[in-house]
């Protein structure tokens, strides 16, 4: 990893397994579509990478509306992985995405281990896909999804199958809805994962008291946003100490300061999710804040900050 000298300004470049990102800021899955949707609002080339909306083999229509509801400092969503399917993505969107200087990471979904493997194989053969994020943690589908992410054995099976099906960096995305995240981090490492995304949304429920029905048509949903940040930072810290592979921190990042918490906790890179909806240009602000911080603290690069938390015990 070419860590520039402070003179040349701190380096934001990071390595995620075989993948090198020009900066550690990624747009999280499900919050930036297939990238092209936001290309006119934010310059994709300023991002280290974008993670696509979850993709199965076939197209899916997702849940009924309402699909999103705001909660205190949070967003509860049950989209249900509406998507065009991996083939349409490869044929229609990927070519447009390649015009931008940013890493393209496909968020892989499946109802069976075989589907995960097949989607991964198709994505891997397409030119312009840089890595696979394995979504074993979506709380908003009735089959698959989170079921794979709360059982260490199933987690291992899915990751191992994808590992066999692809030579791209494999990045399982963990569910926070577990007692001990380190168990799942280790299962992923043993199954051959190159990195770990930490974390997906927390299972929540919001109720409309007048109708006595859930506010979301699906019922429960996944909680994201600043509300969950302290929990996501804690899990990132736990996971980073449990495994050797890099951790991508995710959860409630709304400023450079928030991102710094994840790096210090042990993240090698971070993803911004919910805040894409209200602050599409937040990346420039975060990048500026990181450079300023690294300069003030005389660090050669962001990689030198990862895992520097001074924990009391």
């Amino acid at each position: 990893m070419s860590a520039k000298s402070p003179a040349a300004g701190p380096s934001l470049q990071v390595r995620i397994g075989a993948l090198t990102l020009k900066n550690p800021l990624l747009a999280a899955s499900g919050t930036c579509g297939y990238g092209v949707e936001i290309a006119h609002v934010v310059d994709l080339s300023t991002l280290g990478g974008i993670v696509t909306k979850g993709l199965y083999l076939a197209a899916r229509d997702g849940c009924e509306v309402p699909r999103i509801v705001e909660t205190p400092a949070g967003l509860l969503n049950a989209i249900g992985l509406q998507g065009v399917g991996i083939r349409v993505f490869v044929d229609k969107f990927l070519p447009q995405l390649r015009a931008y200087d940013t890493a393209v990471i496909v968020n892989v979904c499946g109802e069976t281990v075989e589907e995960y493997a097949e989607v991964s194989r198709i994505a891997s053969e397409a030119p312009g896909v840089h890595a696979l994020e394995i979504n074993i943690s979506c709380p908003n589908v009735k089959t698959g999804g989170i079921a794979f992410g709360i059982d260490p054995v199933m987690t291992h099976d899915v990751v191992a199958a994808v590992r066999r099906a692809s030579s791209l960096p494999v990045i399982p995305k963990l569910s926070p809805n577990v007692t001990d995240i380190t168990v799942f981090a280790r299962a992923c490492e043993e199954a051959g994962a190159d990195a770990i995304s930490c974390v997906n949304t927390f299972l929540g429920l919001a109720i409309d008291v007048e109708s006595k029905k859930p506010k979301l048509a699906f019922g429960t949903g996944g909680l994201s946003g600043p509300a969950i940040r302290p929990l996501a930072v804690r899990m990132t810290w736990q996971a980073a100490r449990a495994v050797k592979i890099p951790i991508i921190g995710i959860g409630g990042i709304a400023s450079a300061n928030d991102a710094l918490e994840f790096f210090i906790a042990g993240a090698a890179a971070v993803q911004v999710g919910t805040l894409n909806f209200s602050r599409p240009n937040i990346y420039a602000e975060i990048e500026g804040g990181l450079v300023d911080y690294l300069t003030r603290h005389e660090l050669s690069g962001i990689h030198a900050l990862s895992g520097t938390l001074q924990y009391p015990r």
Partner: protein
Amino acid sequence: QGTRGPARRGKIRGTRPEVTDPGPAAADRVCPLVRRESLGGAYALLTFEHRELAQAKAGQFAMIQPEAPGDLILRRPFSIMDTDPVSGRFTIFLKAVGPGSRTVFDLREGENARVLGPLGRGFSPPREGERVFLAGGGYGVAPFALFSRVLPPGRAALHLFYGGRSAVDLPLIGELERRDIPMTLSTDDGSRGEKGRVTGPLLSALSETAGNARLYACGPGAMMQAVARIAAEREIPCEVSLDPWMGCGVGTCLGCVVKIQEPGEAGPKNRPACTEGPVFDSRRVIWPHGDPA
């Protein structure tokens, strides 16, 4: 929730002209509030300054939140009611109904708002010689202010049906009169204009209409659905502006999907109203509660 298709499928004429100027590119801007006018109760007119946004097309909207940090995460969508490309200003008509609209409602002149826009596909222009009928209610009447001003020659043949529950629910009358838009008012309780729904006067007007007509509806769902039904029965082209709950405005959150069935498709698909709409050909719309009796 079971969803049924439209009652009758007449021959579907392509009602959206191929080339519709999409308007200026959307971007996230910080705009100062230069004028705030209360229309009484929870209603207000907010005029912001921004060159590009002042180029917005009729029916487009923007995602807006105060620049000052607050306790809400998402912005809220508001239609561009009118623009002044010369002075570089645009106005929204706002009804405070909850926390998000309230934060915008509470903005004071001189304060800034974050405005992501202009967004969405607006109304398509009528064809030469078509008689244009507009049906508006609630905040839905807002975009017709701009729409009626920018209409090509056919303008004279335009008529607006503006309805609400009661007289107090027609706060925009003054603004619309100032733009001297031919109007027929109606209220459910008869406290202003004709008694009953907008569809009443609309129907009688249609029956008196010789030649081609075109409908545009924007307002409460039930009203738009009723107008769509009238259009379907008479095979009159009709556009409706839907307003599902929106999270991002740019097609990424998929929170705003509506069921749309394009010609030749086996069934309806969930499509984001923020990018494929908010204005849709009413014949493509599968209404959540099926057809009203």
